[in-house]
């Protein structure tokens, strides 16, 4: 499925795009996990790692300390349904 696609605009989408393309290349050539070269594996792991930190930092820019005092999840039992 290496069809032409619109290249994503933001950095997170760009990384996700790159990771998906690597997965597709491996699948297109029917490469089993153990036959994927170390170089490709390193690129894949590096991109996944970068994506992890970018996504997490994007979340941090939204939460902005508002979860810092949360020690425990308030009970949302069936007896006390949560409000929507």
């Amino acid at each position, binding site marked *: 499925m290496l069809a032409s696609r619109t290249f994503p605009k933001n950095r997170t989408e760009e990384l996700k795009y790159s990771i998906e393309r690597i997965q597709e290349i491996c699948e297109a050539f029917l490469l089993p996990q153990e036959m994927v070269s170390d170089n490709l594996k390193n690129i894949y792991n590096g991109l996944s790692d970068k994506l992890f930190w970018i996504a997490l930092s994007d979340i941090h820019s939204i939460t902005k300390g508002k979860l810092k005092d*949360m020690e425990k999840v308030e009970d949302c039992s069936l007896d006390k349904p949560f409000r929507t």
Partner: protein
Amino acid sequence: MKLLDTMTVIASLDPNHKHYRKAVIHLQRLRSHDDVFIPCVVIHECEIVLRKRFSLAKVEQILRNLNLILPKNKIVPVDAETHAIATQWKLIGQSYGGYTDTLIASLAYQNKANVISYDASFRHMGITTIW
């Protein structure tokens, strides 16, 4: 098998949280360690927690980013048996946490797993915790 608790995920979402550093390490292990998983009910509970503190638009943004962090092959579903065990514990007074805590604990019981959490309620339900 090790299961991430909701508070581990929530703590990792805020660098000012007292358990942030450890929580992020555990979140990274979800990607790097074969034996670490996240129950689907944890994502559900995260949404509930986030909805109480943020607008729906922000919750959506957080969840979309979380989707990039949580590997799909590491999300463990709960089944009717998980709910049955949780209900049984509630019936005999062995349920110590909230609704989702009990489901996470019963999922751990089903899979002979430990729970990655600093919450003592899991230990009260006979589940070993790691922190």
